[in-house]
């Protein structure tokens, strides 16, 4: 066994250091399965001290490393190059502190998003950001990706809910960011916010202090189906224009509805509708009642086919179930799934969806749409067979055009899934060399020798050859397979 591996085993014991190349296959990719790469080793630390010790060993050996939570990322963030060691944080899953009066919790990074809410539920509290992967993904991963979710329309993204963090820097030293009281020095940089969304390239968060929210007095969930996608989008426009801020505004298109209804996550959505719109309202009972009436009026004005409302928790759960299981259910359509993530201004949703449909038709790919309509955050999904190189190339080409469309409409190439390796090529649609240079400088402050999750999030010439392979590969796929 090489020196480094032996040292890791001495540190963590043989059970928590995986080096068998065959076993390591399991860590080859995240939810973005186009990009696969087998790491050199995987270690399973259980405390900040262990993370520090591992990172020091790696620093001494000048070996790159990649933090990983639950591996649900959709942009290749935790996929490690073949020379890198993965620090899988799944075992660091203790809730360390719950401050009921001051409304915050301190957790280890491997705590699963939904488990945190479960741990504070009896106190009438919850953790607000709720990615659809919330039963699986970790707070560490959420922090690194600045993840959002249906309820982020009203409550904000992860960034608005992380107060402080303890971070192991790439040289093994510890940095404390922010404070639970949220007091930031006047004029100083908010380092917690800076770290948030850094996609594992700034260091490893080993303790995260997050805001807890009080449960609202009343929650009402409404579902309306429409004969056209346009009608669904206009309803969203009407609701927002009326000055309402629903907790969530989600749309699923017909193909998505059908896949969901065929799965264990079936929620009873009408299969003949072109789109369903899920609206959740929360707040004081009286206010929510008034808002529900306004939402119903907007449904009616736009010719809703069927309206359903859930008031008790079980019914609510049922209506949400289909939305939460939507990505997985798409697995029924083909062997692989490419989940895209782009943003457009809400007022241009209709235009964007029409453009996406046209792009899908042009490339002959099977496209489904499910999205956070309130934020204009689109998730076009392409179902394809990853074993078919030409189909994969068409999928990537269609994705490329869709993101360009988002940018052209005044939006962006990512709402919440991050850049990872997936979008290294697309970053230049939005930023020029000078912009990228600023970002690279900021990263270099944290991660000067680029050993911490190298080759992610920023297209960089200095990245090691290994990580430069991926964009080169997409370029090749696009060149060879699509433009003959």
């Amino acid at each position, binding site marked *: 066994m090489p020196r480094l591996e032996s040292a890791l085993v001495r540190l963590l014991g043989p059970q928590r250091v*995986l080096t*068998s*190349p*065959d*076993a390591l*296959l*399991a*860590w*080859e*990719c*995240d*939810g973005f*399965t186009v990009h696969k790469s087998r790491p050199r080793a*995987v270690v*399973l630390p259980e405390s900040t001290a262990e993370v520090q010790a591992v990172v020091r060993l790696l620093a001494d050996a000048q070996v790159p490393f990649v933090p990983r939570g*639950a*591996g*649900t990322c959709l942009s290749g963030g935790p996929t490690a190059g073949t020379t890198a060691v993965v620090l*899988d944080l*799944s*075992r660091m*899953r203790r809730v360390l502190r719950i401050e009921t009066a001051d409304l915050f919790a301190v957790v280890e990074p*491997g705590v*699963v998003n*939904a488990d945190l809410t479960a741990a504070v539920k009896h106190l009438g509290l919850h953790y607000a950001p709720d990615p659809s*992967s919330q*039963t*699986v*993904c970790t707070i560490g991963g959420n922090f690194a990706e600045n993840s959002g979710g249906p309820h982020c329309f009203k409550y904000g993204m992860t960034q608005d809910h992380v107060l402080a963090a303890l971070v192991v820097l790439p040289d093994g030293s510890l940095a404390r960011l922010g404070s639970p009281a949220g007091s930031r020095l006047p004029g100083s940089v908010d380092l917690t916010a800076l770290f948030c969304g850094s996609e594992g390239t700034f260091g490893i968060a080993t303790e995260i202090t997050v805001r807890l929210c009080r449960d609202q007095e009343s929650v009402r969930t409404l579902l309306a189906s429409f004969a056209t996608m346009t009608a669904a989008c206009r309803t969203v426009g009407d609701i927002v224009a009326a000055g309402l801020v629903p907790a969530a505004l989600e749309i699923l298109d017909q193909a998505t509805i059908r896949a*969901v209804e*065929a*799965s*264990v*996550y079936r929620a009873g959505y009408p299969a003949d509708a072109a789109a369903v719109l899920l609206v959740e309202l929360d707040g004081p009972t009286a206010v929510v009642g008034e808002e529900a009436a306004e939402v119903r009026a907007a449904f009616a004005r736009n010719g809703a086919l069927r309206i359903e409302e859930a008031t008790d928790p079980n019914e609510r759960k049922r209506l949400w179930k289909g939305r939460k*299981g*939507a*990505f*997985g*259910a*798409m*697995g*029924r*359509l*083909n*062997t*692989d*799934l490419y989940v895209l993530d782009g943003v457009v201004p809400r007022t241009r949703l209709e235009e964007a969806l029409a453009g996406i449909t046209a792009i899908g038709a042009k490339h002959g790919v099977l496209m489904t749409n499910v999205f956070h309509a309130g934020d204009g955050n689109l998730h076009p999904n392409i179902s394809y067979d990853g074993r078919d190189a030409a189909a994969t190339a068409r999928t990537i080409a269609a994705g490329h055009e869709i993101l360009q469309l988002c940018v052209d409409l005044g939006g962006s190439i990512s709402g919440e899934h991050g850049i990872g390796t997936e979008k290294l090529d697309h970053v230049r649609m939005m930023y020029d060399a000078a912009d990228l240079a600023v970002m690279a400088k900021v990263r270099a402050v944290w991660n000067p020798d680029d050993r911490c999750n190298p080759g992610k999030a920023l297209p960089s010439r200095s990245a090691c050859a290994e990580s430069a392979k991926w964009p080169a590969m997409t370029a090749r796929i696009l060149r060879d397979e699509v433009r003959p």
Partner: protein
Amino acid sequence: MASSSESPSPYARTLDCVHCGLCLPYCPTHQVLGVEADSPRGRIYLMRALAEGRVQDPTAIRPFLDRCLDCRACETACPSGVKYGEILEDTKARLERDRPQRGLRAFLVRFLLWHVVARQRRLRVLFAVLRLLEITGLRWLATKLRVVPAAIAKLAPPVPPAIERSPLPTGEHHPPATVARRGERVALFTGCIMEPMFGRVHRATLQVLLANGFQVVVPAAQRCCGALLVHAGQPDRARELARANVRAFADVDVVLNNSAGCGCAMKEYGHLLGDADGAAFAAKCRDISEFLAERGLSTAPAECRARAAYDDPCHLCHGQGVRSQPRQLLAQVPGLELVAHDKPEDCCGSAGIYNLLQPELAGEIGRKKIESLARAGVDLVLTGNPGCMLQIDSHLRAAGHKVRVRHPIELLVPPQ
């Protein structure tokens, strides 16, 4: 694609997985170990890589597959409809065929499963011997001398006396004259371990069926269901047993099972045998609770004053989708207070002979189950699978809880 029919190859089945991870929180081994390769997503990925010829040394991935309980909780959770059980069983069969596991332990397991468990008469002798060892104090001695690993010795329940182990009389059983007949004849499957450990469950099953007006046949030619062999990667031997069962139950329309594991395996004979006979047989199989809930009880059960929890056996809830039926029947027991406990669908760690093969992990999983039951403050636990009954009972005893474990059918027996 999940939608394509006609029994796709195990490789094609692995392609149903889109790597979303929604199954992870439902997997008992991933919950305890926190290791990707010990999760459904990771295991499917490894099995796919194996099928693609990307695994250099299959023995390196074997431990991850061996640690899987085959509890199917991941199937319940999977939005993409992945048939995990089929992938696992086919992969294990392939591994066993290409490179059979060596060593004394593997040999013993193979020997016991085929030459003892699958032969009811030898199993009876084995239990008689075990009982004798117990009565003569030799079991105690064996434990002291550490002939038997302490972990197993501590958990192994006492063997019941001969009278409780006596087999059900084979052949036809008619409802008593006092009972209104339903005019339906059903067959009862008796399996392997249920008889020597829980003969009383078989007697209760027969009693309930007769009291409810059904004519019952216990075919003499029936054999073990073969589930343990399938799990151990030996489908050929399991097929031999399956064919014997298809023949033994040829003249009935309903085959009833009071063991969730056996019932699940027998409902999968279509896949195991890969022919129409297997599929037709599978279509006749019903869990006893499924059947009784469907037909309705015509004779009320005896009163039972207890605070009870119903715990779902994996192979009943995940394997057969039977969840409401046992609860619905138990709700008809006078005096019984049925309370909810946390995670009734989580595996208890029994999983066939898993608790013998992976005692540590099974112990950890079992302890979680007991904690959940203890929090519910019950004095009776109901579950419809012999393995689960043993596992839950031994863990309750080990933790010092005075809680009884019964099969739901035992509570449906009418007053004497």
